[in-house]
């Protein structure tokens, strides 16, 4: 089957019920997307499919009909996305393991809602677990990224 990931087409030969997460990590080497629970309960594996945030650990690859974007497709160390720069400015990450998923979830929120309130941020982000407890800075970084994306 064929998948478009971060703007690039990939031919892959795997069973259609294989979760996207493991296709990305083990078959394609895109290890920025993380395994946390395997049951869509922590958000570490969040990617975009057709612009929507999905949990790749429970998304069978055979059901994907739209382009996939992973953390590697959002921005790179040399060309940071606005949201990644906001994360750096707020020094959000501690262990950092959940942050790919947090950023993908937040990016999907901002694409849909350019000026989210605290409550809207909480509602969108509550599926993303962080055991280091970086939530206060994630929320601040989302507000900051929203402001920059609005050109404010």
């Amino acid at each position, binding site marked *: 089957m064929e998948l478009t990931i971060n703007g690039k087409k990939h031919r892959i030969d795997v069973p259609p019920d294989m979760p996207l997460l493991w296709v990305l990590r083990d078959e394609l080497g895109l290890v920025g997307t993380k395994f946390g629970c395997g049951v869509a309960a922590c958000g570490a594996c969040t990617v975009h499919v057709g612009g929507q945030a999905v949990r790749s650990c429970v998304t069978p690859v055979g059901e994907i009909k739209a382009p996939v974007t992973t953390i590697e497709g959002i921005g790179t160390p040399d060309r940071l996305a606005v949201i990644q720069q906001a994360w750096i400015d707020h020094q959000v990450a501690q262990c950092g393991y959940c942050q790919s998923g947090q950023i993908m979830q937040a990016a999907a929120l901002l694409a849909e809602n350019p000026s989210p309130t605290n409550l809207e941020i909480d509602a969108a*982000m*509550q599926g993303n677990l962080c055991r280091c407890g970086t939530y206060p800075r994630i929320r601040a970084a989302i507000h900051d990224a929203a402001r920059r994306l609005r050109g404010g």
Partner: protein
Amino acid sequence: MGRARTIARRSFLIGSAAILGGIAFGAYKLEQEPENPLRPGKGETTLNPYLLIDGQGITIITPRAEMGQGNQTTLAALVAEELDLAWGSFRIMHGPPAAAYANSTLLTAGLPVKDYEERSSIQQMFEGILKKVPTLLALQATGGSSAMPDAFVKMRLVGAAARQVLMAAAARKWNVPVGTLSTRDGVVHEPGGRRASYVELAPLAVDIEPPANPPLKPASQWRYLGKSVPRLDQVAKVTGTAAYGIDTRLDGMLYATIRINPRLGGEMLSFDASEAEKMPGVRKIVDLGNGVGVIATNTWLAFQAVQAIQVEWGAAPYPPETDAIMARIEQAFEEAPNSSLRNDGDTEAAFSAPAPDDVVEAEYRAPFLAHTTMEPMNATALYTRDSMRVWVGNQSPVINRDKAAEAVGLPSKAVELITPFLGGGFGRRSEYDFTRYAALMAKAMPGTPVKTTWRREEDITHDYYRPAAIARFRAVMGKDGPVALEGKIAAPSVTRQSSLRLAGFAPPGPDRGLVEGAFDQPYGIADYRVDGHFANLDIPIGFWRSVGNSYNGFFHESFMDEMAHARGLDPVKMRLRLMKGVHEPSRLVLEKVATMAGWTGKTPEGIGRGVAFTYSFGAPTAEIIEVRDGPDGIRITRAWAATDVGVALDPRNIRAQIMSGIIYGLSAAVMGEITFSDGMVEQENFPDYDALRMNNAPRIDVEVLENKTRISGIGEPGTPPSMPALANALFDLTGKRARNLPLNAMFDFA
């Protein structure tokens, strides 16, 4: 390569025996300076175990696990400050397992003394000896909030000495007196205008003897220390390019997982893998003795195949149900105490005939807890019959290397271990089980790299848990507070179990860890005694963020609140009075947090506030938690914290660590509980072992004070007071006293 250096040796002869939580040492000859483990390649120079310089630039070795605490950034800052480097102009690397990176303060934390008290001369002598022992034992470990106390002087000296050596090389090159030279941002300057970079000078400096005690900058001249510097790991961690152990990728690599007896420590009686063997992509089934492993062409296949294996598991070596386990812990009160590390005055006399109205009593319980690091346990190994390489996020590289070597029958020197970023540690990765299993899996396929990843279900059901504990407290109350206080704590011993597992011996004598957070609090009470009782229980337990303080903080500070309320006293004022003249920095953090929160001792209807204080890992930390009743349940709305680390090397990072410790503690207090049924852990994944999320975590304000003289670490001290502060706030809100954790058994949270 490198150069021969004079190794200064000093002998320490300890008269009869030194007592560290009961460890007796005979006479040892301790090397002052262990060998530099860095093996520079062509074009590379190393001046000491912490610096590697090549044509590309300077690499600082930061030999502690980066598991979120930001320590690699601050460790690098210690060297960069004295070496005079531009921030961000260097790389950092964890470095290999080596005695050179032993953590010299790790064992001193086990001294059975109250840390807030000045050390006597004999205690100072023991402390000095104990700082040498980790080098002897190659105890390279990240834990106990010890990285900064260990490195604060050591790594600045390394930077200062290297700077002197590089300046001496420049002086020789230009034939000028070294005193005329200066440095800036990695370059040596000469008044005539000549300049040379450290990179170009390094090869000329290798035969110059470094000064033993170079002068260090006064704090007033610090550029990076004492300031909030940008963490060095942020760009990698927001772009998905930070390499964690689980991200290891090697040519021809296969993917594996394991399934160990869920009755922890039990045998595997038999297994039938015929179904799994037929599954496409499965390459090998491995008999691990107490469990099975599957090697496949991807992780998902391995996960499915391992669950398709039929296994008959043996029984657990402990009572199979939670109630019976707790009863076993309770039995420990019947035995003589293992320790009475606080025994001030005469509690026996004080409790012999008190007025019944003056007595306050309570019993508390805390459950087993899992760590749930976000990155599940994993390790990757490449075994080739005469050597092995292992990639694993871990907190104890020497032990992990040695245990992996032992498992596959290789000498330690044939095993290379690489420590990438850790997706959380919290004490879980001080163990080596994940490395040992990965080594065994790789041994089944010599020449092929094998990455072994645990399913989250395997991770939660095969942890080294924070032990459950029970405490019995009683007090005789005077007008302004307790005049006599007695606490008895019963729990299985983390110190004993982990020492046996990690070091092969169990220290006899008093176990500080069992009672820390209860016996060592800076309160002046005339008759004050704390006993620790060992529970005999073979459930795997280990270091969980703040260790004994994590349950004793809850017990001791819940009881402080009960005592205050029994007499109608303000819980802040009562504590301030008890601290007066005992430890002023502790009193000041409590006073500070009360000011920050605008504490009045009174709260309006629908709002509750609670306070707690714990002195742990050298850092007195006071916290106030606020809760509010709402239509969808109780919300934790605010938290205030004040702490004192002596020297605040990176204030922003310290505040982040306190916030992190609070959220970790509140998560456990609200909902954390590991229970057993039929010998197996009942919780398996985040749906039944959850933690606070963004929507139910409070806003947190933190202040960092510097009234203490000694520097302390900050990875753990935020956690202990958060749990009692919450329970005390809930009492203020509802009038209901929670004596058992987790609190969601008694309260409905939003």
